[in-house]
């Protein structure tokens, strides 16, 4: 039975276990670490902290659960399985240095029942890919437009073994989530104008601004890119996911700025599009294109490349307590 009054006991702790580049340390169930209670959700913050300092997840993320579902499923061959699904979310209070978060699948490594007995344990799966941070443009009451960082939502599946009694309560749930963190963040600015010369943006990364047109309220650009796939990851440019060991250089964003150095997209009303094509998929060349038609697009002055350097993986252990389990009937 669902016991009221338990819900408020939620405590979220983020435990960090450093797994430096090339040295992934997979946590096992119940790995010890020092919990730190995270402050309640806060709206997105603009941190002025040095992004190159050691990255403390508790200073950047606030986690919690939003719902829990108990399900029994049968296919047409009457093969049945049961599971609990806990919907969780991280509010990203400080995105500094955070390149992406685990794209899953995310599984619980430890779940305890109402008697503090383990009813599920597993090892953490290998990280497959990362999900870049997601922003949504939003019109504000003052008429301005701002990009808002979206919460990172994910579901945690807990399979229930056949014949075992389903718990009434998840008294403790430990969930490892991996973050990709930049050792340093670097902005490289180029004039918003066509240039027949290749420009070195970073080691292993050259660009040629083939087209940079401004016509009335509209801008349009096309950039040829040469990169060393062993050194540079450009996949987040097209909003897809990057996989495997972090590259030395990750291009996290391309932005168009006005003469004051402010993002045009973040301030403007209008339509913006960008994309990328890979003539030899993953083999070192790419064409990045973008366009906009907006009230401020005519002021395009700078193309900014945002680069994450020397990125590394970091395990974040989300610990949730006292999650009620619904009964089916």
């Amino acid at each position, binding site marked *: 039975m669902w016991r009221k009054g338990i819900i408020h006991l939620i405590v979220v702790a983020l435990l960090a276990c450093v797994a430096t580049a090339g040295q992934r340390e997979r946590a096992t169930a119940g790995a010890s670490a020092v919990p730190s209670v995270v402050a309640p959700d806060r709206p997105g913050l603009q941190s002025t902290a040095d992004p190159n300092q050691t990255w403390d997840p508790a200073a950047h993320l606030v986690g919690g659960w939003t719902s829990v579902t108990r399900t029994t499923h049968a296919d*047409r061959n009457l093969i049945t399985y049961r599971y609990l699904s806990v919907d969780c979310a991280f509010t990203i209070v400080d995105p500094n240095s955070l390149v992406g978060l685990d794209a899953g699948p995310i599984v619980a490594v430890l779940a305890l029942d109402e008697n503090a007995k383990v009813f599920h344990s597993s090892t953490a799966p290998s990280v497959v890919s990362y999900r870049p941070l997601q922003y949504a443009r939003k019109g504000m009451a003052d008429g301005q437009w701002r990009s808002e960082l979206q919460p990172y939502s994910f579901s945690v599946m807990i399979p229930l073994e056949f014949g075992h009694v389903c718990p009434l309560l998840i008294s403790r749930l430990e969930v490892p989530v991996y973050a990709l963190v930049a050792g340093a963040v670097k902005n490289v600015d180029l004039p918003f104008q066509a240039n027949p010369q290749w420009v070195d943006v970073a080691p292993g990364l050259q660009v040629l601004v083939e087209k940079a047109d401004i016509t009335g309220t509209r801008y349009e650009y096309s950039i040829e890119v040469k990169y060393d796939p062993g050194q540079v990851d450009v996949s987040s440019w097209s909003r897809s996911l990057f996989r495997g060991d972090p590259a030395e250089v990750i291009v996290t964003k391309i932005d168009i700025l006005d003469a004051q150095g402010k993002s045009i997209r973040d301030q403007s009303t209008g339509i913006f599009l960008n994309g990328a094509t890979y003539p030899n998929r993953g083999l070192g060349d790419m064409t990045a294109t973008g*366009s906009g*038609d907006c009230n401020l697009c005519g002021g395009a002055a700078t193309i900014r490349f945002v680069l994450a350097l020397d990125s590394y993986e970091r395990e974040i252990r989300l610990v949730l307590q006292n999650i009620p389990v619904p009964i089916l009937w």
Partner: protein
Amino acid sequence: MWKRGIIRLIVVALGASMAAAGQPNAADPNQAWDPAAHLTGDWTGVSVSARIDRDANVPARFIAVAATVAVTDPNGFLGLSRTTMSVLAFDPNGQQVCSTPSVRDRTYWPPTRIWVKKAGRLVPQLQPYKVPVDIPLDPNRACPVMVSRLEWSMYALVAGTFKSVDLPFKTSNQWADIAPGLQVLVTKASITGTRYAYSLMLKHDRMKVRLVPVSGHVTVGGGWTLPEVTVSGVDLRDGQGDPIEEQACYGSLGVPRSDSSEITDTLSGSGHCTNCGTAVTIHLVLGLDAYEKEVRFTLPNIPITVLWY
């Protein structure tokens, strides 16, 4: 105006469920397209679930049927909305256990297809839509032992007429008018060893013409009218009209000028094949005069008791 013969095009009219333009009753084209002849509903699994939202006091309970909709005959079919509506579920006594509102979804998704080899030829095989049908239940009422009848509606986007257009697989500097309000320019058509690549520019009125390979779907409503022309597919064909290889096709959206609905999109395809040298045409499939059609599905006897243990 649509000018024929600007470039030598091979225009092939495919079998169409005709809602012919100019006919007096073309305003009721829904008479022509019988959903039962084109779409088939089924189910693959069923779940019972209970959910607690952190901010809610009462758990929600529901049955979820993993239904599928197979496209048995693609003629005239452009896409299906993903949302189920007007769900009705009945227990074995004929009592209604659930009724959901008619919230209409007007975004239409084409069926996904995979290429399979049959008799040495690659042919597209349409994949069924996966359609989750949720049956919310009264938490204070017993769960039925069986859903004796499940009904739901979805909307389909249907073309009054289909036709295909084959463009020569070679670059051109001349725009081709392939349908009213749609011009195409082949900007790239190359074969290097076992690799091919092509690129098209498509100039069109975005209110009248929709490019599914570029946008991935067709939205109606919210200012968008039913398209007069829908480009539903693009692939590369040999001299016999057979596709030469599975391919990656991707597009980029253009930006319309503020004062005009005219837009130019880019559509590119590339891939590897053993017989690239046989590529002769870039094959486009167009659906004309699209309309929406409500489709009602009914499934009998979905057991629930198996879930009680």
